[in-house]
């Protein structure tokens, strides 16, 4: 699992867990950040908010918030070769 903030644009993963206060979790969960939701990072420039795509819509997230969303990276075919 990695924090969402560490994904680069184009990388896809699945939401695993959220950390933070009840309020933050409540807001994120309502927007679709629930375990099992596929998520793709659209913009992440290393500073400023990131943009992700999930459940058919795009959401901008502050870096602080994106650090609290844990995702499992989707398996990437290229990596499989090198791991074998």
């Amino acid at each position: 699992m990695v924090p969402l903030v560490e994904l680069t644009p184009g990388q896809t993963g699945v939401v695993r867990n959220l950390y933070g206060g009840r309020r933050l979790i409540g807001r994120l969960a309502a927007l679709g950040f629930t375990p099992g939701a596929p998520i793709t990072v659209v913009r992440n420039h290393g500073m400023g908010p990131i943009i992700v795509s999930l459940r058919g819509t795009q959401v901008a997230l502050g870096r602080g918030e994106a650090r609290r969303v844990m995702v499992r990276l989707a398996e990437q075919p290229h990596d499989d070769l090198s791991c074998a």
Partner: protein
Amino acid sequence: MTICPAHKEIAPAQRRSTSAIHPVVALAGQPNVGKSTLFNMLTGLNQHVGNWPGKTVEQKSGTFTYGDCTYTLVDLPGAYSLTANSEEERITRDYIIHERPDVVIAVVDAAILERSLYLLAELLLLPAPVILVLNMMDVAAQEGIVIEPQVLEAALGIPVVPMVAARNRGLLTLAATLGALLREERAYEPRRPTILPGHESVLEEIITHITPHTPHPYPPDWVALKLLEGDEEVQAMMLDALPAPLWEEIHALLREHEDAILDIAGARYAWIGRMIRAAVARPRVGQVGLTARLDAVLTHPVWGTGVLLIVLGFVFWLTYAIGTPLMDGIADLIEQGAGLLHGALGGLPAWMAALLADGVVGGAGMVLTFLPILIIFFIILALLEDTGYMARVAYLTDRFMHMMGLHGKSFIPLLLGFGCNVPSILGTRIIETKRARLLTILLAPLVPCAARLTVVAVLTPLFFPRYVGLVTWGLVVGNILLLAIIGVLMHRFILKGEQVAFIMELPLYHTPNLRTIGLYVWQNTLAFIKKAGTIILGVSIIIWALSYFPAGEVELSYLAHLGRTLEPVGAWMGLSWQMMLALFTSFIAKENTIATLNILYGDLEATLPALLSIPAALALLVTQMLFIPCVATVATIKQEVGWKWMFISLLILLALSLGGGVLVYQLGSLVLG
């Protein structure tokens, strides 16, 4: 003739409106789903805009007639869910639970069906029948999404109406469906979302415990679910309602199941997945929608910023090329009108003629002069919001605004301040959190408005003929730097609170709806005239009276007396009491600084430069730039955040401007010997 359904009176005592004879229909939906467009299309000008009792959130209600039947329509604020995360969400659920509308129309964006159905999953648990409106079917088609409403209807067990509200498509079907549902000619058997098996037993346990104690009219199973979701408001309510030992028991259960919140939300999304599986065909992989294509440029760090600068340039051009000249034109007309009136009222006592011509006409005229610039700004705001571009502006500017504990949404309102602070303060309504909104309102008067800049443009050449550009630039940059510093300080020390979480949906781009924009501009302009306008007129008359009585001349007036009392403060800045007086008259309108100086000193070009040393001239300019805003701005601040914060804002600005003036004068005197 059809039989019109009547409103089911549940608790007459609770009802405050007289419209209770008509069935009450509530519109609910997430932000950006086109709910307001539907509301405007249905009600047209038959609507009333106010605030929810005791809240700063706008309340819109209206009536519409279909066939022989009339309905009362209430527009609930946009809410992503029904947990007490925001004021909007609390209002929405409280309204449905306490006021019991006869039908709730749940509006969703067909193009982002999955996410926008989340609210429906929550609405179905409340005691009101729901009609689902699939709005923006055209946008969905444009994004390559195909939806079969009948299939969705069969899955959900509630009426589903496809719609393009902006093009008036589907409204008649909605009205017919509404009538049929109210007359019970139509089946209503909703399939509600369930909780995941892991938390089923604990939910049952809580329901059993709390049912005898749940206050009316809350549904116990809903309360139990909200308790599990950790809803603070419902927890507080049940803490009062339950006997202490029972609350302890429930509280322990909740503590044990703190993770339930994600499970419950997850179960709702799983339910949505089951509901839409058969009804929705997604675009083929690789098909890129319009929004994605536009965002490839518009949220790009370089190109996006470039486009933003062009858009901002256009906004400024509109303000200064159209708004300001119109403002000046109206001001001239008013002045001439006041002059004519003065002549015509020759028969009256002098003070009465002056009161009518200068106080009343001048004050009312000032309200009028604001209109062109306000209308321009409301159009810009509505366009930015309605097209979906506003969210991109917020995204692009967030990093910069973050330093002040604000986020990108505060950027546009503050920027509007360069034209006029009034729309800037009204524009803060787009900011969701109370704290961020308040901070933005407190900072807004530090943005120099067109009128302040006019004063600078007149005064600077008098004192610094060779450095006009440099001094003006320095003054503007100084204001912005101060705004940033005050923002950081307030964020750190005064309005600390929770750092605003930046979580913002980037809605799909839409073609703006002219009716929505027109009504937005109309209602906001009208509200300004009615609310702020009355205060402005009142205060203008009072200040006018202070500057007129007792002798009929400003030099001998009560206001001049105040200026003289402040002479010691003026002395620290190297300013005479006349100049302090000029600053105070700028409270009516910023341009008054010049007008008052003219009255007191005659030809400014000949007199002023000789009166003030360089440090004193700088002090005058700095103080003017930071001084308390005009009465229109102050009245708007009062209207938006109340007396307390209005006075705090005034005190901050008074301290900053006088402090700034003293500092500049003293430092300047030191350096220049």
